[in-house]
Each structure stands twice: as structure tokens, then as C-alpha cells.
């Protein structure tokens, strides 16, 4: 086995993020103050974005790396871009947030990059081992980030639940890998599993292995019934970290699922039929969006409501995965558009939530948001646009994301019920998103809101709102980018 220079160049975005993460960690211990590590991390993100663009402009054909451990293709590069932008936005929001709440750690910046590097490994993975390494790198960094606000007891509680259930999920992943390895005659690469799947599809141990892997991944995207950790972890985490978990980490896990289900377990004998994963995943998608939305209706805490909303979105995303299993044309680019729109919206929403709180006064209840439109009309308007995008109301990116995923699913008559359920669910979700809007516009202010000055938050909020609106008015460029990510063989 050898390593060609071309492979290192192809993987440069991932290597840059990892390397800059290590350097930021060291720089933080050497330099005075937190600013150098922050600047280095941000510069690293920009450089990695340029590297992604460079790869995109390049050959465009998919390229296996290190004997098929990883792959560089259009889908991976598209999601790399989303993940790096999510990391950059998190850094921009986290720095002022931590300063305001007086718990600034330099490690925070390095950990955001490590989580991103793990997520990028997941979307590049074409081998069960690299998938596991990516998932674990991403999760370990996320556990620490959730617990990083040490004065906050809720953070420790959320982090512990996240850690215990995450470790449990990792156990599922490893056990599933072992079963698949054993029943396919020693295959762990997706291509190898796909080649042996036809023979192994009626072996109960192989099916069990596939479902164990699926379970492990569903934990990570917080699908019902594996969502228990999500509301506590989302609520306890520092708000910028919650934004990263709801955007970057979810995007990476869904990207990993697209590859795993779209190649390794795409065999019709395994996917379709009574016990096929398409049917099971359809049921889980229904349960996830319904439970997420119903539970969100009852929340008074904005962060917790958004946590349940993110569970509901995992349900919508799984409709795309089910369509992928039915071999529907265009399911994969539709998912990518959804992920991009959802990530941008989520980052913007959590930026507002992070901005609203002051030291010792986090203002997380909906009634704390009363009358915000009067004191800060621009922020209230931005929040309204972002919430409408989460609800899927045109003209926002959230609408087109849902539109493409549902349209792809409609091509299969078996999935019509799921799409109808999803549309009804979206209608339900409008209620709780609008509760925040009503509080901001039609309630008298309880306490005046004084946001702390922050250029970083303003930039992130402005950019996410522009992106969300642009995606809703002219979705074509991003749709074409996502379609360029369509790769049928890997």
C-alpha cells in the first residue's frame, strides 16, 4: 500500500481542519489570551473552505482514498462545505457567547474543529472502520463541548446522558460491524459488503448486523425511539454548541447514513420486503416527526422546543433516506438541499437564542422574548424568517428543502402516506414556531432587551438569513451543486 500525493491533496480539507485543530490547541497553551487560537481556528476554516472549492473545481470524479477507507466525491465535498461553514459560524458565535457568560476556554475552538473533522470523516467514509472512527471523533468532541459550561449544572447532566447513550450507540455500531464482518466473509468496505449482500441477505445474523449499524446511526441523528438524550443535551449545552449539534453533527450523521444505506445496504433483498430497512425506517420516520412535533408543542423553553423541532426534522430527513432505499431518482440531491437549508436555518436560529441571553439571565423561556420586535426589530424579523424556514413556509430555504425531499418520495407510491403525514406534521409545527413570533410581536415587553454588541453574531445572523431567503427565492444554484454531488457508484 502506498500513499500518493494526489490522495493527500484530495483529502486536504479534512487534513487542514484536523491539523489546525491540533495547532489551535497548542497555540492556546502558549499564547496570551484566547484570541490567537480563535483566529487560527477561523483562518483554518476559511483555508479548508478554499480547499473544498479547489477540489470541487478539479476533476469532479470520485476518488477512493487509502484502499477504499475514504472517498472524495461531490457529495462528500458538498457536505464538507456545509460542515466547515457550520464550524465557522459556531466559532463566530461561541467566542462572544463565552465572553459574555465568562467561561471562555481556548480548547473550545479546537474541539469545534475536531468535531468537524470527525463529521467530515463520516461523510467521506466508505468503510465501517472509518465510519466508526469518524463518529467517535465527532461524538467525543461533542460530549466535551456540551459539558464545557462548567458552572451550569444542566450542562453536566446533558453531557452525562449524551455520553452514556452515545457510548451505548457506539457499542451498537461496533457489534453491528462485527456481525457484518463475520457474515460477509470479512468485508468491511461498503463496496465489499454490497457485493456480498445478495448472498448474505437471508442470513439473520447479517440482517441483525445491518440493523445494529442502523440503530447506532439513528442514535446520532436523534430518531425516535433513540432521541431521549437530545432534549437534555441540547438544553444543557452552551447555545452555540447546541447550534453545532443540531446543524453540523446532524448533517454529518445523515451524510454517513446516505452512504451506508445507499451503497452497503442498498441490496433490494435487504432494503425492501417485510423486514426490509425501508419499511422499518419509514415507520421510524413517522414516529420521529410526529413525536418531535407533539412534544415541541408543550415546551415553554425555547432551546428545548428547538431540540424537539430538530428531532422532527430528523424525521423529515429520514423520508429522504427511505426514498433512497426505494431507488428513487433524485432522492440524494434532495437530501443534500434539505441538509444545506436546514443547517443554515438552525445556525441562524441558535445564534439569536445565544444573543438574547445576558450574563446570569439566559432568557430561554418564550415569555422572556415578549416584545422583542419593538426594541430590536431587525433581530426579531431575522428570527421570524428563520422560524418560517424551519416550518417550511415559502419563500425560504426550508420550504424548498422539504419540497424536494417530499417530491422525491412522492415518486414511489408506497411512500405517499409518509409524505401526507409529513405535510400534516409541518402544519402542526407552524403552531409552536409561531408562538415565538407572537411573543416577539404581539406581547408587551416584560423586560427590555439589551443585546451585547457582537460583530460575529451579527455576521452569522445576516449571512444565514440571506442564505435562507436566497435558497427560497432562487434555489437553482444550490440544487445544481447538490445534483453534482450525485454519485451512483462508490
Amino acid at each position, binding site marked *: *500500500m*502506498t*500513499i500518493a500525493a494526489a490522495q493527500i491533496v484530495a483529502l486536504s480539507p479534512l487534513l487542514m481542519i484536523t491539523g489546525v485543530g*491540533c495547532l489551535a*490547541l*497548542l497555540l492556546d497553551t502558549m499564547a496570551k489570551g484566547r484570541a490567537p487560537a480563535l483566529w487560527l481556528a477561523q483562518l483554518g476554516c476559511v483555508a479548508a473552505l478554499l480547499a473544498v472549492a479547489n477540489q470541487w473545481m478539479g476533476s469532479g470524479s470520485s476518488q477512493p482514498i487509502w484502499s477504499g477507507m475514504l472517498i472524495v466525491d461531490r457529495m462528500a465535498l458538498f457536505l464538507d462545505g456545509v460542515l466547515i461553514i457550520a464550524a465557522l459560524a459556531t466559532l463566530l458565535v461561541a467566542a462572544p457567547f463565552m465572553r459574555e457568560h465568562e467561561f471562555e476556554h481556548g480548547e473550545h475552538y479546537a474541539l469545534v474543529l475536531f468535531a468537524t473533522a470527525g463529521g467530515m470523516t463520516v461523510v467521506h467514509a466508505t468503510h465501517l472502520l472509518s465510519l466508526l472512527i469518524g463518529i467517535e471523533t465527532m461524538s467525543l468532541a461533542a460530549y466535551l463541548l456540551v459539558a464545557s459550561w462548567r458552572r451550569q449544572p444542566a450542562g453536566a447532566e446533558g453531557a452525562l446522558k449524551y455520553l452514556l447513550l452515545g457510548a451505548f450507540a457506539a457499542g451498537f455500531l461496533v457489534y453491528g460491524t462485527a456481525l457484518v464482518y463475520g457474515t460477509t466473509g470479512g468485508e468491511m468496505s461498503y463496496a465489499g459488503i454490497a457485493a456480498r449482500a445478495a448472498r448474505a441477505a437471508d442470513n439473520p445474523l447479517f440482517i441483525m448486523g445491518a440493523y445494529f449499524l442502523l440503530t447506532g446511526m439513528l442514535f446520532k441523528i436523534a430518531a425516535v425511539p433513540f432521541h431521549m438524550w437530545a432534549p437534555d443535551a441540547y438544553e444543557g449545552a452552551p447555545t452555540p454548541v447546541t447550534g453545532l449539534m443540531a446543524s453540523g453533527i446532524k448533517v454529518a450523521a445523515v451524510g454517513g447514513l446516505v452512504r451506508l444505506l445507499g451503497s452497503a445496504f442498498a441490496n433490494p433483498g435487504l432494503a425492501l420486503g417485510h423486514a426490509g430497512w425501508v419499511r422499518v425506517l419509514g415507520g421510524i420516520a413517522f414516529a420521529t416527526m410526529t413525536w418531535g412535533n407533539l412534544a415541541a408543542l408543550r415546551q415553554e423553553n425555547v432551546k428545548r422546543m428547538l431540540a424537539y423541532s430538530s428531532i422532527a426534522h430528523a424525521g423529515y430527513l429520514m423520508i429522504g433516506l427511505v426514498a433512497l432505499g426505494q431507488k428513487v431518482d433524485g432522492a440524494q440531491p434532495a437530501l443534500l438541499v434539505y441538509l444545506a437549508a436546514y443547517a443554515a436555518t438552525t445556525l441562524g436560529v441558535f445564534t439569536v437564542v445565544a444573543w438574547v441571553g445576558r450574563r446570569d439571565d439566559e432568557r430561554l423561556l418564550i415569555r422572556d422574548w415578549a416584545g422583542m420586535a419593538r426594541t430590536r426589530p431587525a433581530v426579531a424579523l431575522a428570527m421570524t424568517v428563520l422560524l418560517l424556514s424551519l416550518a417550511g413556509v415559502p419563500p425560504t430555504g426550508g420550504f424548498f428543502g422539504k419540497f424536494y425531499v417530499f417530491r422525491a418520495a412522492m415518486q414511489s407510491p408506497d411512500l405517499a402516506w409518509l409524505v401526507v403525514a409529513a405535510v400534516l406534521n409541518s402544519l402542526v409545527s407552524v403552531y409552536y414556531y409561531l408562538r415565538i413570533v407572537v411573543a416577539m410581536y404581539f406581547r408587551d415587553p416584560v423586560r427590555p432587551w439589551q443585546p451585547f454588541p457582537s460583530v460575529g453574531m451579527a455576521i452569522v445572523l445576516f449571512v444565514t438569513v440571506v442564505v435562507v431567503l436566497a435558497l427560497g427565492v432562487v434555489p437553482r444554484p444550490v440544487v445544481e451543486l447538490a445534483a453534482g454531488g450525485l454519485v451512483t457508484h462508490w
Partner: protein
Amino acid sequence: MGSDYIAAALAILTGVGMAVVFSALARFVGERRVTRAKQIPYEAGSDPVGSPRVRMPVRFYPVAILFLAFDIEVAFLYPWAVNFASLSCAGPLVKGTCRAGVSWLGLGALALFMAVLLVALAYVWRKRAIGWD
């Protein structure tokens, strides 16, 4: 196939058998003199009665965690050393010797691994997690 299982069964039988034989010997042949100190639950002599909430210096935890982290990472060197010949060969090994050119993959991978380890070491060093105070 069958002989593998016979070997495994022999190993299990030997293991269990030795445990049974030694316990039986100690029980029936050995001499026993009962003293109070021998009857308390912890043979190390710690007093079993008292508050379980003893305050432990937190300094033990970093030491334990760092030991675990670096110890496990050092364990990765063994499989690498065993496979060094095939990792350093550009082609497959033929009867244990390399006919193709030299590949730097084996050395490079470990250098990268050690570099990451050094980053961690430098980090804990600068954070004063290694010293006792």
C-alpha cells in the same frame, strides 16, 4: 475444525480444573489460624466501617486519565512493529522478503501518530497537568 474445539475444551478444562484443585487443596490440606485481622472484609487491612465519602485529592484523576490515554496509545505500537516489514514494502511480501521498492507508509503513519501524541503531551505539559502541584 473439530480439533480446534478439542484444544479449546482442553484449555477450559485445564483452567477450571486447576482452580478447583488449588481451592480444594487449600481448603482440605492447608492449615488455618483465625485472627481478627484476617476476618475483616478487606485483607489489605482497611477499616470497612466508616463514611464512604472520603475526600480524595483530585490530583489522582489527571494522573489516572493521562496514564490510561498514553498507555493505550503505546499499545498501538505493538501491532505496528509486528507488521513493519509489510508496511514498508511497496508491494506484497514474497515469503517474508520484500521484492518491490521501499514504501514510507509504515514509518510515515507512525510518525503522524507520534506527532498527534506529542501534541497531546505538549498540551498536558503546558496545562501543568503532569506535575503534582
